[in-house]
């Protein structure tokens, strides 16, 4: 055993995108401290956008051909990492754009002026009068994003856990910063935090058991250990894997670890919900893919049925519960649960094509989700978001373009052909069918669940177009170019990925490569 600590090789080019995003967050904190309040918002937005654009540039120039394991194997920059990190940066950009929306006011519309103030207190009122604004949401989002980027590239369990916490902690804060219905927001934040901590504990417990079994936290090492026999340690292995999976499945919102999703999605500021739904899900699925495909695939016979049951439950419960929702944000939350189930079906294909399908699905779903939540944030009644479904009645008559875009996104959620939703579902389900009986069963359940969700989505379209408005003052707020751009990018991408998915599918296929 070497006693001397050796500094690991660092491939700076490979990790440059992560570093840029992190640096953006750090500079953001300095900005928070030194830039005058008047200009803080615009500086923060500009800084975030610049950081994300730079990160993307770094990704496509430096990292893309630099596929290595670095930092002693704790960061793996392979095809999957590059594709998912690129997607994350895009989501981050769109998320920042929607978070920066002012709707004609003097500060970001979605966020409270003072997160620390007790809701309804004089302190809060004073902060409001003083024109304070929580412009620290931008560095928080960047920190969270950097955690997500690390999460998908983590090559060992310790790094994965650190990344998990780095991505989660800023999100907990962001969820609690809603400007209106603050109690609901803070409650959501607290629940998310408590249950997230609970899930992290499972993850850590599982990691510890795995370390006990394999004597390493490195995913390659674990994979190697599984091929050998470990006398007396065998009973540790499967429970360990399951516990780690629980921690990861919590983040994607799989049933029965989904309970936080509707509450957190509903309470969070709507732009944060969109960002969270798109980016967190993608990051967590990246981690699941790496853990399952690289680390523990050798024992999959012993736990894949369990994971399949979770996938089936997730699809069914997500779809069925969305039927009775009356709040658009909760409805989209259950929809995201159902989608998590669909994506899990692709994961369970255990093939390169499955990997491609899952990555494509994550990108397509994220783009439509951010656009959908951005539209939700625009529909208002009396200055607050009109999230009750009944308030959306007749929206198609007053705001035809907005309603048509939302209707189109709903069709994409339902997986109707000529939308990216259809391509994505096809790309994820087809490899599952090839994988065997289990996959076929899951796909059948998935298609049936899709039919149920289609009912839910079409009902909203019917509500928007064929019902008369209950009240006349439900209007779509005049969005700035920021939100409009985010919605446009999401919607256009949904069309393009639905009609000509070829290039992106090809890109995903090239990225379907994991360095072991």
């Amino acid at each position, binding site marked *: 055993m070497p006693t001397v600590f050796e500094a690991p090789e660092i491939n700076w080019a490979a990790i440059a995108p992560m570093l840029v995003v992190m640096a953006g967050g750090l500079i953001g904190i300095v900005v928070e401290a030194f830039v005058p309040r008047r200009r803080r918002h615009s500086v923060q937005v500009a800084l975030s956008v610049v950081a994300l654009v730079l990160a993307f540039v770094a990704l496509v120039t430096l990292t893309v051909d630099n596929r290595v394991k670095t930092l002693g194997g704790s960061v793996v920059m392979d095809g999957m990492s590059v594709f998912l990190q690129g997607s994350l940066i895009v989501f981050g950009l769109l998320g920042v754009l929607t978070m920066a929306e002012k709707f004609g006011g003097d500060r970001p519309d979605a966020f409270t002026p003072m997160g620390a103030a007790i809701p309804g207190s004089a302190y809060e009122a004073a902060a409001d009068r003083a024109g304070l604004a929580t412009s620290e949401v931008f560095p928080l989002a960047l920190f969270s994003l950097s955690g997500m980027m690390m999460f998908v590239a983590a090559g060992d369990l310790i790094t994965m856990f650190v990344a998990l916490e780095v991505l989660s902690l800023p999100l907990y804060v962001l969820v609690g910063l809603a400007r209106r219905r603050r109690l609901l927001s803070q409650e959501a934040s607290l629940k998310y935090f408590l249950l997230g901590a609970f*899930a992290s504990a499972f993850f850590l417990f599982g990691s510890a058991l795995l370390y006990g079994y394999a004597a390493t936290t490195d995913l390659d090492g674990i994979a190697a250990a599984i091929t050998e026999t470990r006398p007396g340690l065998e009973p540790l292995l499967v429970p360990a894997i399951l516990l780690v999976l629980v921690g990861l499945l919590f983040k994607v919102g799989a049933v029965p670890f989904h309970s936080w999703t509707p509450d957190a999605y509903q309470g969070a500021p709507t732009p944060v919900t969109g960002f969270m739904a798109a980016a967190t899900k993608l990051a967590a699925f990246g981690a699941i893919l790496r853990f399952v495909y690289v680390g523990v695939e050798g024992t999959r016979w012993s736990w894949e049925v369990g994971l399949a049951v979770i996938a089936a439950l997730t699809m069914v419960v997500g779809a069925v519960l969305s039927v*009775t929702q009356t709040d658009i944000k909760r409805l989209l939350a259950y929809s995201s649960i159902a989608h998590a189930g669909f994506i899990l079906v692709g994961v369970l294909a255990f093939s390169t094509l499955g990997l491609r399908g899952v990555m494509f699905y994550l990108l397509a779903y994220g783009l439509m989700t951010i656009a959908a939540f951005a539209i939700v944030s625009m529909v208002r009644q009396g200055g607050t978001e009109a999230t009750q479904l009944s308030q959306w009645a007749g929206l198609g008559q007053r705001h035809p373009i907005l309603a048509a875009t939302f209707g189109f996104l709903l069709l994409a959620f339902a997986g109707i052909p000529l939308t990216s939703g259809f391509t994505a579902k096809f790309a994820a389900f087809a490899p599952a069918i090839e994988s065997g009986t289990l996959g076929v069963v899951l796909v059948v359940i998935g298609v049936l669940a899709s039919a149920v969700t289609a009912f839910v989505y079409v009902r909203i379209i019917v509500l928007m177009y064929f019902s008369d408005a209950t009240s006349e003052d439900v209007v779509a707020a005049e969005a700035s170019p920021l939100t409009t751009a985010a919605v446009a990018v999401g919607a256009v991408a949904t069309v393009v990925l639905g009609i000509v998915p070829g290039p992106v599918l090809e890109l995903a296929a090239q990225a379907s490569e994991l360095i072991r």
Partner: protein
Amino acid sequence: MTFLVTAAAAEPGAAPAYAWLLIGLPLLGAAILLLGGRKTDSFGPLLATGLSWASFVLALPLLFAMLGRAPEDRAVEHVLYSWIRAGSFQLDAGILIDPLSMSFVLLITFVGSLIHVYSLGYMKDDPGHVRHEGHTLSAWEESRQPSERRRFFAYLNLFIAAMLLLVLANSYPLLFVGWEGVGLASYLLIGFWNHNPAYATAANKAFIVNRVGDMGVIAAIMAMFAAFGATDFAGVGAAAAEADTGVLVLIGLLLLLGATGKSAQFPLQSWLGDAMAGPTPVSALIHAATMVTAGVYLIVRSAPIFNNAPTAQTAVAVIGAVTLLYGAVVGMAKDDIKKALAASTMSQIGYMMLAAGLGPAGYAYAIFHLLTHGFFKAGMFLGAGSVMHGMKDEVNMRRFGGLSTFMKITWITFGLGWLAILGVPPFSGFWSKDAIIETAFIGEGIRPWLLGGAALVGAGITAFYMSRLFFMTFHGKRRWSERDYHPHESPPTMTVPMMVLAAGSALLGLILAWPFAETKPIVAWLEPVVGYGGSEAEPVLAIPVIIALTLIFVAIGAFVAYRMYIQEDVPTTAPVGSWGTQAARADLYQEEVNRTLFEQPGVALVHGLEHTDRSGVDGTVGGLATWIGDLSSRLRRIQNGFARSYALTMLTGVVLFLGAVWVMQ
């Protein structure tokens, strides 16, 4: 076969490239008027009329160029673009200009343009109608407001373009595009005053009945593709020479089905009477002069198929003979002037069909009668429109009478049309109808006696009901009161087209059948396309005998009408009449037959399917939906908002997850 020889000789040359403008100009007019909105209200009708005339003027140099070539070189083709390419199958969209299509082009653009002019007057606000203070517009008056006029003219232009496409197409699929185009224009114009539900229903009826025929054309095209691998006229013509007779009979019968739909022939005749719901210029142009004769065109154009399929050819002749009598019988009992004319149209197209079913001997006469009929029937329809114009849109002939003194021009022009349709020499109808009757008497066995006899009797009945119509309208006692009606002559925009058409009614037949020429000019003109018209075989009766018989039948018919409708008073309400009259008045129960044979079984089938769908399919789906909704409401209670129970759910999940996997191991 004479036709085949000529077809082989006539390898089409190239037509001038501007030929497509014939179709393009009216289509452009329709597009401008429909898309231009109210901005085109002021000049739209004039523009449409101008473009229609432009199409006619464009056709003239093509005609002269054609006359300048030798008869066998007269067919020219202009390929527009490659339309359908599928493997070895190649189809070009192209324009075929030969004497047959040229005849139609001239008829459509000339009569069509005249009717455009007439419509300028007819669709204007009634000048004789005094509008009182506080008088609200009736729906009828409302429909004649400017924007409605624009729509009307747009549809007229659309019709002209589609009809020209139909006759100029060089292949069956392209013909079918025009075929459907005229169907659409006809539908739009029958239902032009669609605020009246009965008119909208009439439009639907015309459209739906035509669909039955259209299916025939589609099936025929499919059969051609399957049997010959070609659907253009040249390809089909070449292949038909060697094809199996059974296939040709099938294709021929399918084409005949299409023709019966479009030309309102038995058994698809029921829509034409109701189609009179459209404005009268439309009835004149579409439902008398041009569109309804498209079926005859289709048969004549498909001569190579029918020539080699005698059974199908006989079917055409029989359908024609049946329809000519059917229409004539119905025409005797109608009191609605437009419906009587419609029945007459049906009957006259029956003559054309009969001629087309007589093979090469009859094709030229079918087209000949089609052309003369296009003039005299359009003229009479315009005359009827003029009468209605002066009589506050009254159509019941029992409310007319003695109008000749009030509208002299209408009376004279209508009278020329009347003489023409009766077949009185030397007016147009005499030349064309007589030729058909003579040709129908050619053949062996009982066939010439049946077909010729039908044509002969039809001529007599025609004379009766047309004279009845003419007398009831213009002669006899006035059966209207001065207080309610102020009959007056129509404006020149309406009377001038009527005069032109009347001139055609009088002279066209004489010109086209110039008796001093060796061959009749119309026969010589069409010979390169349809083969030689004059058969060597002689009719079973001598020609002078046939002519004499025809004239005697006509005289008897007209005389009976004179006795009944001039010498005796016409009751203003129709008498109950014999069962024969009642049957004819009820269109020989065509509606009842259709209802019993098609509608009721169809409705029963739909009810059955609907029941299965509601109780079976919907029941299952609905039950499933209710069940999912219940399940959802129950599951929802787990989501109670307490973090502690969420954590418990997770813990339970973990335990079950671990337990299940442990048990499985």
